[in-house]
């Protein structure tokens, strides 16, 4: 919470120092960003308690998806086809063991 207030003060003080037309530009950017965030959040299946936490600044959603390019995330096979291929190959990937190994090495 405190960190959020400090950010807010910094932003306000920076924006106040800008010329008037630049301030309007910032306002338009903020309004656009707000619309995007509201739209994205409304599409998410978020429980109310998480929405409350986000509003209070005690939880932040990750913007990881914005780094993943939609084009590169277009799978050539479906999840079922992928699993089927490994089944055919009789490969059982001990994926959890790899995760545990990695955690053990930290």
């Amino acid at each position, binding site marked *: 919470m405190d960190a959020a207030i400090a950010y807010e003060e910094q932003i306000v003080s920076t924006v106040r120092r800008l010329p008037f037309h630049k301030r309007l530009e910032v306002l338009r950017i903020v309004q656009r960003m707000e619309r995007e965030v509201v739209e994205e959040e409304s599409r998410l299946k978020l429980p*109310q308690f998480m929405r409350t936490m986000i509003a209070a600044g005690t939880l932040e959603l*990750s913007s990881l998806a914005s780094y993943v390019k939609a084009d590169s995330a277009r799978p050539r096979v479906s999840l079922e086809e992928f*699993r089927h291929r490994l089944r055919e190959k009789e490969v059982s*990937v001990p*994926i959890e063991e790899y995760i545990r190994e990695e955690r*053990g090495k*930290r």
Partner: protein
Amino acid sequence: MITFLFDACALARRYFEDIGTANIDQICRYPDSAIVIPNLAYAETTSAIIASYNTGMLDEDELDDALTLLDTDILALRFTKVKVDDEHIFDAAVLLRRHKVVPSGQVGTGKAGIGGADAVYLAIALALTREARRVGDRLILVTSDGALYQSALDEPELEAFHFWTCQCSSCGHIRIPIKAQDNTCPACGKLCQPCKFENCDSTLEVKSVL
């Protein structure tokens, strides 16, 4: 509404079938639920998929497909990605002091194996659970990591589901099996020899145990 928090084991198990995949699939299809994935799980799962390739389990195409399927899930609105922040890291350190320290003379509590990443999942699960319970909601941490699961059980507020949990097809007894070993049902004596995906005939309906 139930909120499920997946650790990397749960997320990764979506792509590679094994015991527990059926439970993960049921959770993903669970009605009126939310699935939350901390951003940390993306790096952990990517690393594990690459490790599968490096050890010859996957060929290049399969590596590419697995990573792409993971990216698809990251883009999917079905999975809510949350950010690991400083508060979670600090809480994780506090939890490590509580769970990882082995009191002198008492070795092998099962929780001593908890690591930094596990503790981060635990910290996020606790933070979300506290808010969820305040309004009468539920959050369930989903993992197959023994140390993380045991530590979660020791937190009175927290609910956890070990996704290897199975139900005996003969008598209906529910338990967490020991993978890759012969498992005898303690209720009816039915033998799973050994416990592995190909032999698994678990009839567990996840809904019945949550």
